[in-house]
């Protein structure tokens, strides 16, 4: 388990350094999430807290200027509720809002409020500006 987690950490590090250094990846967002967790036996399909609490992270060098960050690693919690908790269906409206396309028809998600802070000078400077900020 630990070697696999270290391997995945290495892959994320690789992608992140590429996002920082490559010109064509400057406006990329890496969304790292799980579809489900697992219970103590290593299985999934039930409704134990461990199975229904996967992680969701939004990773990009551009987010560093907006957010102060949280303590990491967090204190262990039995119910696996860390940082802020959102519904899985919230991912679709959030991505729709960030990229600028309409929310899918029957989606029951709400835009993740934490990410509203990204809008400081209008959306166009966030994901399509290519790294340059326009002065206001």
């Amino acid at each position, binding site marked *: 388990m630990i070697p696999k987690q270290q391997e995945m950490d290495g892959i994320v590090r690789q992608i992140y350094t590429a996002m920082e250094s490559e010109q064509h990846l400057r406006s990329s967002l890496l969304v790292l999430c799980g579809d489900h967790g697992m219970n103590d036996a290593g299985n999934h399909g039930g409704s134990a807290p461990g199975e229904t609490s996967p992680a969701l992270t939004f990773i990009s060098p551009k987010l560093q*200027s907006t957010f102060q960050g949280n303590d990491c690693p967090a204190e262990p919690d039995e119910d696996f509720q860390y940082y802020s908790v959102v519904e899985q269906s919230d991912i679709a409206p959030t991505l729709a809002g960030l990229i600028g396309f309409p929310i899918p028809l029957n989606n029951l998600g709400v835009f993740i409020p934490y990410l509203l802070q990204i809008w*400081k000078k209008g959306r166009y400077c966030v994901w399509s500006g290519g790294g340059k900020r326009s002065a206001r």
Partner: protein
Amino acid sequence: MSGAAEAKGVHADSHADSEKLDLLLANARQLLAIVQATYPEVSFEINPRINLCNHLSSSDITLLACEWQNIQKLIEMFGVGKATYDEVKDRLLAFSRKAQEMMSGTASNYDLTRLVEGIGVAAVALLLALSASFKSLYNSGAAGLFFLAVLVSYSIMMFASSYVEEEQHFWYWMQAGWLAWLFAKE
């Protein structure tokens, strides 16, 4: 200009604010469309003759409709500068979360009385079957005991397991079938 003060909304850029509210409003409208499709009998439009917010025995859906009307008035006030960005944002998010909660709840809308009644009937049937077969099982000795053990373990296996592929059923049937075949071989 660092992110800290602006993130707190102290020197909020009004263009960014109205963009954010547009986004949240579009989200709320999209959820509202789903709610309206599920409850076509409730009108969400502002009707001066019907005051949805005054009913003391309001259902969740009428309260939601009342909240939507309040939000529309609040947005008009924001347009003329009489409401703050934070007020509108918080109301929109609360409305969206309430709609989301309500709609997710209807997806698993079980009739609990029927469920309990069904379980009661099944339990009575089980007791009757057991009392009818007890005598013959008792007289069958080891075979009857084995049959009873297999029945009991199968009923225990019926409870929700975390095996997605239900592989325990395979082992169950293999064991019972193999023993039956051994018996038939004699």
